[in-house]
């Protein structure tokens, strides 16, 4: 019995066959972009305040990302400008930011500020809040406790 097809269909370059190839290529390109963006972003070294000017890559002559906690009583907001002092391991750094930081920004909270240090002041172009991995219920007693111990 002859089982060869009578009509050999034209090989169809259907979109159903082509689509996965396009998606696979696209995924590879996006993957590459992600790696490049990550590596480019890592140029902004993530330094603690006490490492600025000390640790390699945390030079105060380049754009840096600096982590520290906002000092209690240092936060000032005036005409859309926010200034505060951030500290880490007993070392402090004044920060000036044109704008209102978003998220749960407040005193005594760890933040990461991106920018350049000019005359000892970090001129931030971006501020991000770094919250801890602890979750506590909000209630009146805890709020008082939190307020009392926030910066201790």
């Amino acid at each position, binding site marked *: 019995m002859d089982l060869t097809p009578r009509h050999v269909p034209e090989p169809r370059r259907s979109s159903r066959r082509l689509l996965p190839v396009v998606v696979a290529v696209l995924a590879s390109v996006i993957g590459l972009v992600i790696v490049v963006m990550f590596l480019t972003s890592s140029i902004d070294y993530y330094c603690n305040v006490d490492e600025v000017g000390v640790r390699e890559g945390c030079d105060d002559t380049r754009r840096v990302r600096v982590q520290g906690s906002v000092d209690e009583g240092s936060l000032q907001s005036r005409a859309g400008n926010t200034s505060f002092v951030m500290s880490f391991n007993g070392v402090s750094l004044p920060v000036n930011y044109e704008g209102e930081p978003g998220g749960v920004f407040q005193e005594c909270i760890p933040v990461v500020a991106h920018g350049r240090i000019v005359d000892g002041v970090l001129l931030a172009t971006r501020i991000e809040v770094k919250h801890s991995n602890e979750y*506590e219920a909000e209630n009146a007693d805890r709020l008082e406790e939190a307020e009392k111990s926030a910066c201790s």
Partner: protein
Amino acid sequence: MTTGTATTRVIGWIAILTTAWVVVSAFFLTPADVIQGDSVRIMYVHVPTAWIAYLAFVITAVASGCSLVRKHRTLGFDRVAGASAEVGVLFMAMTLITGSLWGRLTWGTFWQWDPRLTTTLFLFVTYVGYLAIRRVDVDPVRRARRSAVIALLAVLEIPLVHFSVVLWRSLHQEASVLNTDGDVRLDGLMLFTLFSGVVAFTLMFVWLVMHRQRLTALSDVERVVGLDASIAARRAEHAGGVRAT
């Protein structure tokens, strides 16, 4: 023809009930966080979907390994691998979306090229690529072998994603439950709701994977039945031709 069975129906109903409990608990019973306020409620979706996505990709790798080793059941394991990866990608997308919203509310930004965020996005894109590769090959056996190798390599990204917050300085907080020191840093009802979320999403995952892999099996059967029908038709034609001569 249906992909449902008594087991999937039971799992489906338990998943619906557990999810309903999670919604009620997350929105009405659990307290707001002392720092983050109500935005902490995103955690009850964000964390379980991330964990279940990890689980899905591990199952994909295990099933892929089995499909390579147990050659007489290659296609069965491959269907589970593919179904698990599809659901895993769905859950990972939910993780990225909820994480981005949570980030805007707490960090003040939707996105940052941070180690945890970047490696998670990379993991997501890897599995989108894996699913695309699965659709390139028409031959199921070749598809199974090729995608199994990719799945076994892709799963190695998971430890990198999970420990990225420990390996690098990250804006993303460290784990509150499965952390290196074993401490749980969540209030009681918050932890219980999070655990309920994990149960609900696990049941959803199982339900979806069972249906999806059965759907793939039916599609494979349809292909074989179609081929058998063609051969039978040709045989009938041949028999008719012989009789005519």
